[in-house]
Each structure stands twice: as C-alpha cells, then as structure tokens.
C-alpha cells in the first residue's frame, strides 16, 4: 500500500501545489487546451460556451480536444483509484501535448494539479499537473485581465467560492486563517464588471454540501448544508449566486428549486463574458 502510493505522490511537483505554476504574464495568442468538465458538457453547456467565447475575446488560441471525458475525480474521490486510472490515462492522452490547460472548474483543477495520482508517475502526468489552471486563475494570474468592457451586470450578487478553489487552490483567503491578508481572485475579476453589486452573507466560505459523491451517499446532510447556505444568501437579498464551480451550483440549484427559492445561478464565466440579461 505504502509503496504504491509513494510512487504516485512523488510525481506531483512542489510547484504544482497551492498556487498555480508560472507562465509569462500578458501572453497573447497563446494556445490553450479547453477542458470542459463532464457535468458542464451535459447539464450546463452554456457555461462551456461562455468560457470559450471569453477566451476568444481575449485573443487566446483555444483548442478543444474532442475525445475528452472527465478528470477522474469522481472515482478517485471515492477511493476507487483502479477505476480512475483509465480515465486519467485518457486525460493524459488528450491533453499532455498542451502547455496550458484551462477549465472552468476549481474542483477539476484541484484534482488534476494536486490529486492526479491514480495513474502511475510519468513526465506526462507531471506536465498535466503543472499546466492546468482554473479559468479564474488563468484570467487573473496568467493573462492578468483587469477589465471586461463588454460585461454589464446590474444585479446583487452573492459570490460563492468553492472549497476546492479556496483551500485546494488558494484562489481566495480562507476564514480559518484569520491573520492572513484577505483576497479573492474571483471577486477581483467580477469587480470590474459594470453595475455589479456584491452582498455579504453569513459563513461565506462554509462548504455548500456538494462534495462529489457525498451529495448522494450523505444526501440528508448535503441537502441541509445546501438549504442553510441558501438561507444565509436569501437574508442577504442577493438576486444571483455566482460561482467559479458549477458543481456547487448544480447542488444549490437543486436545493433552491425544491425550496421554491427564486434566486438565480450563474457561472463566473457567464458574467465576465457578458451574459444575456
């Protein structure tokens, strides 16, 4: 057991942990492979479209590898590394030739960067972990985009940042580390959208209850966490819940529909791309 795992872990380079790897800033016409998570492909294609359109607006050369499926996270998160291996191998096959992979999902990025170990260690595997960016990181850290002149969003927004994005990728400061400087990359991007208004709500970085397969195996607790999150947000008077993780929103949307709550949901890519209002 120990040796098997050791081989796996040794492959994740230290640069791939926490903050994103470094690429030269303000690169233009760079080539980027777009990874669309399976649940976005099937349930929220408009999020994939917004991601693609925005990257194109920013003059990025986007390639969409056609045979892509998933990053392997659902199986690996359940402890089923053997079942995850072939999917991770397929991911490597589809993506290892690219120097930069972008996906509109903090949790997939977290898996690919920090947990991509069901497949044995190899230079290709390391390259994947070192090359993947969450969409927000890519805009904020690599392209360093600071204006979205085409976007306009005159609504009250509750920003939900996922646990993977906060504690896995370091995309925002966390409430547990009280003495650290406060920052939020998704918020910094959204602040540039004309008309947007943020609302504060209680326990902003408490988990929403999705947690992958947890949302089904532990459905009662998952749903209660979702209900509580929605109640805190309802009290804030938000019209929209915006997140860089659609999986959290899928769960929260399911809870909201059941509760009859009329709050709306958008992925951050849709807002930054200038969503139809």
């Amino acid at each position, binding site marked *: 057991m120990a040796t098997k795992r050791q081989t796996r872990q040794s492959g994740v380079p230290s640069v791939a942990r926490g903050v994103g790897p470094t690429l030269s800033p303000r690169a233009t016409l760079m080539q980027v492979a777009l990874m669309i998570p399976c649940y976005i492909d099937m349930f929220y294609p408009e999020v994939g479209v917004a991601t693609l359109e925005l990257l194109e607006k920013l003059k990025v050369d986007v390639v969409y590898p056609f045979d892509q*499926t998933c990053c392997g996270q659902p199986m690996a998160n359940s402890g089923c590394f053997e079942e995850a291996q072939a999917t991770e191998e397929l991911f490597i096959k589809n993506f290892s030739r690219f120097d930069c992979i972008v996906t509109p999902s903090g949790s997939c990025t977290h898996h690919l960067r920090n947990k991509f170990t069901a497949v044995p260690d190899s230079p290709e595997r390391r390259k994947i972990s070192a090359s993947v960016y969450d969409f927000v990181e890519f805009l904020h850290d690599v392209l360093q985009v600071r204006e979205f002149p085409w976007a306009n969003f005159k609504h009250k927004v509750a920003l939900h940042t996922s646990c993977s994005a906060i504690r896995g990728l370091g995309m925002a400061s966390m409430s547990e580390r009280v003495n650290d400087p406060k920052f939020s990359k998704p918020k910094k991007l959204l602040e540039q959208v004309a008309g947007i208004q943020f609302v504060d709500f209680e326990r902003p970085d408490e*988990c929403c209850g999705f947690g992958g397969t947890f949302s089904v195996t532990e459905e009662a607790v998952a749903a209660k966490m979702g209900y509580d999150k929605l109640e805190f947000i309802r009290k804030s008077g938000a019209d929209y819940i915006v997140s860089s993780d659609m999986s959290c929103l899928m769960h929260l949307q399911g809870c909201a529909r059941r509760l009859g709550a009329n709050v709306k949901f958008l992925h951050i890519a849709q807002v930054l791309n200038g969503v139809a209002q």
Partner: protein
Amino acid sequence: MSAVDQAKNAAAFIEDRTHEQHLDQLLWMMRTRRDEAASRVPEWEQLRDLASQIKEHTLSHLAHYLEMFESSAKANGVTVHWAQDAPEHNQIVYQILSDRNADSLIKSKSMLTEECETRPFLEARGIRVTETDLGERIQQLDNQPPSHIVGPSWHKTTQDVANLFARVYGSDKEKTDPVYLAHVMRVNTRPLIEQAKAGMTGANFAVAETGAVVTVTNEGNADLSANVPELRICSVGLEKIIPRNEDLAVFIRLLTRSATGNSITQYTSHFRSPRKNGEMHIILVDNGRSSRLGMEKFWRSLKCIRCAACMNTCPVYRRSGGLSYGSTYMGPIGIIMMPTFDAHRYSELPFSSTLNGSCTNVCPVKIDIHEQIYAWREVMEEKHQINLVKKEAMIVAGKVLSNPLLYRIAADSTETSLKVLPRFALYNHLNAWGRHRDIPQPAKETFHDWYKKHRS
C-alpha cells in the same frame, strides 16, 4: 459488528430540527469565538507550526521521551504502569482499586477511558464510578456516550438536561436555567466525591523532563478527582508526552483558544507527586498508538491535543451530531483515528466528509485531516471495505469515462442521459439526490455538440 452507518444516523438527527439547529448554532459560535481568539494572537500561525514541530519531534523520538517521563515520575514518588491495550489498562486500574478495597471511584473526563470502556468494566466488578465533569455526568446518567470530546453533552438542550435531572434526581423539569441545573448536579454529586475511595483523571499533557501530568478543565473537577481521595490514578495515552515544561506554553496558548475561544481555562493543573500519605499511579497506555505511529500516512493524527476545533468547524459534524459516528472519537479527527481501531466497523466514516479542508486549517497542531480522510478512502477500497453499490457505480463510471465513445453515447442523448448520466454524475442513486433536491435537467445539446456545430 456491522459498519456504522453514519449517513443514516445523521439523517435521523436532521429530522429532529430542534437538536440539529441547536448543535449547529452552538458549535458555530465556538468556531467564531476561536476565530476571534486567534485573531488576537498575531503569531497564531507560528504557534501552530511550532506546536506541530514539537509534536512531530516527540512522536519521532517517543521511546526516549517515554522513558524520560517514567524515570522523572518515579523520582517524584509515582508508580508508573504500562498498558499495551484496553483490557490491560482496565485490569491494572481494577487491580489497584481492589488491592486497596476501594469500591468507589470519582473520575474526571477522559477520552482514553472512554476508548478503553473502563467505566463499564469497573462497574461490572462492583465499583461505583462517578463522572465529575458536568457534561460527562449528564451522559453517564442518560446512559449515552459523549457526543463531543470537549462538550460531551453539547447535543442536548437545557430542556433535555432538565428532563433528565427531573427523572433521575426529581428536580423541577420546568427549570431550564443552567445555574439551577448545575446546582442540582452539584448537590447530588458532591457527596459522592467526598466519599470516594479513589480518584481518576486523564491528562492533557505529560511532561517528560518533570514527570508531571497536566489537566486543563473549567469546573475544577479534575482537581477534586485528583486531590480529594488519597488514592489517585491517572491514565495517559502515549502520545500525550511533551519534552519540556516550556513546551507546555505553546500548547496551552493554542488549546483553549482553539476549543472554545477562551484564552485559558479556569484550571490548568500540574500534578507531580502523590499527596501526603497518598498514592499516585500513572498508567501509560498504548492501545494501538504505537502501531498507528508506524503508519506512513496516518501517524500524524497522533499529534492531536483533543481541542475539537475540527468538530466545531465541520459542517457535516454540526448537522449530524456526534453520536451518529458511533465511535469514541467523532467528527474529522474521529474519521481518521477510528479506522485504526477497527477498519471494518468504521469503514464508512471516511466518506462522511465533503473534503472541504476547514478542519485541517483550524487544527492547532496542523494535522492534515482532510488529506488523511481522502487517503483512508483508498485504504478502505484496498481492504474491500467499500459499499458494494458504490463500488459498482464507480466501476461503471470508470468504464464510461475512460471511453470517449461510450461517454458520448451516454452524454448525447437526452433520454439516455436521464438513465445513464446520474450513474456517474450523481452516483447511481437518482432517488437519493432527489429526496431533498430537484434533479438537474440535461441540456438539449451538449457542449461537445455545440462546439462541433459552431467551431469545427
């Protein structure tokens, strides 16, 4: 014994909204108070680093420090015993008591004695055991194990306690004022403390260089348990050793701030030698600790100082209640410790987490709790302790997601989507997702198809 079904127990706890809300709010208040306390200590993160380093140093030189502790304690006039496991520990305690005809024992809260099931062992042999910690006594009277390692009865409302005391002591069940309830307990328990032939405590820390054991309490009950009877027994888990007295300063600053947000408790008591004409016994207990120390991925859980900050912050624990874990240690730290005691019985616990990582970041000794939870999932799979339905779903998911053609067939047709997609997107339990939430609607056109149409 079958595996504990934490999810099922948690669902039952949530059904009863009063208790779920009570626990969530009480523990979130503890978390908030912890944040405030930590923010008043600018060097908080350095303290966490230091505490972690001291613990890791001690654990990696454990034999050395244990022997140092033993010789220091002996020099102080203390009798030191070694217990390899729970039965040996309980037998030592019983032997000490029965050799001296001690038929009554008062004890302060000790998770180690919960772990060893010492109380039922002694009670079955005719020894009257009285818990002196208020919360622990409440649980004893209610015949329930502790639900939280700092506040054993925090899942109970004051009304629950008033009802319990009315039943047991005949007090007024309409009176739910905590001061009144504490008074009822004091009146009924104090005589038992005065009459007890022996006292027992656990230890928060055991200092190798001085041989002292240190307890941290608010009620002063550990002091009563230790000092009132002439015979005193102290049970200490091997991992409680710290090298020097000055190291204690680091841990005391972190412990109560992490636990309840208080700078310090009412009583931080150092016990070094027996009282005059008395006897003091220290039992150093292994009970699985040395084998855990040999586990590459899990030994760091031995750094735990039992502050319960991970429980207070855990969104799953707060909505599940501590009893749902069916274990001595519960919440995030329980999830990573309990499988070392019984991998089958606690095989489901590593799945009672969203892996959100809050626990790891409040932990004052920097245990990588959520990383260990993740690692335990893999171990459970390797030990074939994964639920078969889940395993089956993951095999299907693994096959579909590793094959672009199968994946496209599954994803492209709305009709097929409804049947096949939830298997991996939602894990084969459409009903479970839909019990409290609406099911996401598959889109008319996948991103893949949109891209083919518009970009290629």
